[in-house]
């Protein structure tokens, strides 16, 4: 019986997890409570079973995630029996950086990019495992599975190590590090098909339900708490294709209330997944520039 593409993707992702564990001294799994994180955590648990994954989870928090994401995060870490490290950039906290007053670009840079670098330095992690996929965004299409970062966390897209067969070279000097992306070859549809096959719990916000919303700048935002400071919320039946900080995550109007519905919707989809991600549209080569600075 020939393997299906999900079987092969799973085999390859688990192989990548095991290589990180074998080659890195202090790996960490970046966990954000999104669907890719859920799949990543599931694969990590499979890879090392019956032992627990030999690394902690790291959530680089901004304080602006959906409440449902925080709940899932804490539950998932406890279920997995893994240590959960939550890092909030103290500088951003002190300055009160937020997406409403400071805009998405500054908010993302200070809380997420700088926060991630701080957390990696603080705990001396030398390999950060993330859920990025190459189909997500153009500059990710050329990223290695084991992606080398300088001592300053910089990514040099023109000088990446060639990656042949299944051989990963994670040798580095002290202070340098790696980002590793076990889901590199997965597409959004693969992720959902795998969620369905394995019965993985994902955040409820992916499933359509009546929710309090407002429309802002052409995007539908969910009123997750009073900080949004808007007037009357309208109830719409919405769901999210991608989750981040709630004031920066655009919802779609949808009736897809189950994994199967989502898969059917995706097959017919005519817009891309990151369309709801406002941080991608900050400037022309936005993601590429963010990645060079150290965004995962």
């Amino acid at each position, binding site marked *: 019986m*020939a*393997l*299906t*593409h*999900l*079987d*092969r*993707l*799973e*085999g*390859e992702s*688990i*192989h990548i997890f*095991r*290589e990180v*564990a*074998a080659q890195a001294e202090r790996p960490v799994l970046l966990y954000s409570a999104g669907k890719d994180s859920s799949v990543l955590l599931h694969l990590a648990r499979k*890879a*090392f*079973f*019956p*032992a*627990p994954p030999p690394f902690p989870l790291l959530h680089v928090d901004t304080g602006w995630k959906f409440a449902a994401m925080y709940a899932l995060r804490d539950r998932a870490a406890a279920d997995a029996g893994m240590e959960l490290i939550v890092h909030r950039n103290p500088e951003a906290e002190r300055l009160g950086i937020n997406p409403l007053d400071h805009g998405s670009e500054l908010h993302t840079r200070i809380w997420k990019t700088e926060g991630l670098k701080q957390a990696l330095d603080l705990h001396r992690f030398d390999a950060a495992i993330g859920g990025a996929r*190459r*189909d997500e965004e*153009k*500059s*990710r*299409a*050329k990223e290695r599975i084991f992606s080398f970062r300088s001592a300053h966390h910089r990514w040099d*897209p*023109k000088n*990446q*190590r*060639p*990656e*042949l*067969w*299944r*051989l990963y*070279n994670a*040798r580095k*000097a002290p202070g340098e590090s790696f980002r590793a992306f076990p889901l590199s*070859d997965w*597409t959004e*549809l*693969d992720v959902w*098909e*795998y969620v*369905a*096959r394995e019965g993985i719990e994902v955040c409820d916000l992916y499933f359509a339900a009546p929710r309090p919303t407002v429309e802002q700048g052409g995007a539908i935002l969910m009123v997750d708490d009073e900080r949004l400071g808007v007037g009357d919320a309208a109830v719409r039946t919405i769901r999210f294709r991608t989750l981040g900080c709630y004031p920066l995550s655009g919802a779609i109007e949808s009736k897809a209330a189950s994994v199967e519905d989502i898969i059917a919707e*995706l*097959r017919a989809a*005519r*817009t*891309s997944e990151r*369309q709801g991600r406002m941080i991608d549209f900050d400037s*022309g*080569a936005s993601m*590429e520039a963010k990645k060079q600075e150290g965004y995962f």
Partner: protein
Amino acid sequence: MGDGGTTPLLRFIACGSVDDGKSTLIGRLLHDCGEVPDDQLAALESDSRRFGTQGSAVDFALLLDGLSAEREQGITIDVAYRYFATAKRRFIVADAPGHEQYTRNMATGASTAELAVILVDATKGVLPQTRRHSAIVALMGIRHVVLAVNKMDLVDWSEAQFQKIEADYRGVAGEMAVTAIPVSALGGDNVAARSAAAPWYDGPSLVEHLEAAEIAPTSGAFRMPVQLVARPNRDFRGFQGLIVSGQVAPGEEVVVLPSGRRTRISEGRGEAGQSVTLTLADQVDCSRGDVIASAEAPPEVADQFEATIVWLAEEEMLPGRQYLLRIGADSARATLAQPKYRIDVESGEHLAARTFGLNDIGIANLSTDKPIVFEPYEKSRDLGGFILVDRTSNATVAAGMIRFALRRSANVQWQAIDVTREARSELLGQRPKLIWFTGLSGAGKSTIANLVEKRLHAMGRNTFLLDGDNLRHGLNRDLGFTDADRVENIRRAGEVAKLMTEAGLIVLAAFISPFRAERDMVRRMLPQGDFIEVHVDVPLAEAERRDPKGLYAKARAGELPNFTGIDSAYEPPEAPELRIDTAVTPAEEAAEAIVRFLLSTQG
């Protein structure tokens, strides 16, 4: 779009240049298979008017240039991976640029591909670059090629032109199975849907062919390189890895290599492509890098190989230098011999070569410092493909494919000798050591080494002084002063010194030996503690002032190329056993210190 996650997967590489319409073809494949969402298509239409090369038409090529540097310069820098699916199959496309760094990128993209789509421009036919692309994908083990003859609309869908190109191409395809398809990527003819433009063509469209292409599954007996050993508690020892060929189930007899211990699978099952955890019936030694394999048909074990090398780094290969080799889940130190030849990928001609530079492909022997479990690359990519890593810069400098083990290592076994090094040194009443003097020319290495030997001799010690200059009159007379020759010079001196220590002697070696890597290599040839590195240190200005042989003057005059300290680097030792500053320490005093150090090791 996929189908419940149950469709098979095909990985292929697309080869060609922008001029052949490769980006247009891939963009078209993604678009026609419904992978270009409306918001991206809208962005594409506006980009096409700004950067496009197709006038007012949508330029699908713009879908693919990911990095801003690429869009600005209109070139592709690196391999990109694209994803699309039909109801029958999921596809991963390695999109390798045709011009820039073509070998390095194409080898990378082809290493995981099962099939290659090679593009030819119908108006130009088979070009030298077509030969190049075909040679590289064949070398990387691809057996199935689709020849996409593009821009057929520009030759009025001429059947004769298509047939000529197909026939020409079959002449360069070697043993690869070829399917030729006439297409127009721009118009989408025969890409996803069959086109009425070529009524004489009754074959499949490109997508139909890709959906149906039969790639023989990874054949062969069971093999699993061990990545990790899981020991969650005292009762469980699980061996974790990806099955690279065959299948496995409880009860089956397996062998752990290279040790050769046989046992049975206790728990765990799976087939090629799956990552599994296996437990074994017996307590056998097995750790990361070992291979668990079918006991009936195990892979080979060897430490000397002939391999095809693809050089990926700007710095050229140094024969004799030790690199780190990675194969399967194992790593070893590996040394390449001087190339047998380099291959001209356009003509297939074999060219003489002393080294490999960036994007060179050639054949060389290599040896590893320990036995490696392997299979010839044509049998197994996973146990025959390796990379070489520079141990200082940590860069991946080469990819290699094992052709076969050298019979020398398979058949010439180590001859066990009863009189040992220990027995010989006992008879001489001394512990053999190698005192290695390194430093700039004119630092005083030979002078000091000579004094040390005289003292030891007077004390009744059995010694031998190996001097770099003297060796160059005999054993090393064929070597010059290039970096590669310097590496070989030290390798030979190290081997000779090692034999002499095995004879029980205290060996003194005076060599400039400018590179850390080679001094470390000699250090590792000897038992720990037997290599005493003495850095005979002097400021360059002082050595130049002394200039006992008049060499610095010649070097400064440009008459002596590659002179250490002038136009060739000296890498000082980081932690030598002794450092002598001869600008302030007289030679007699230095010799005294070295003798004292040596006697302290003699017990």
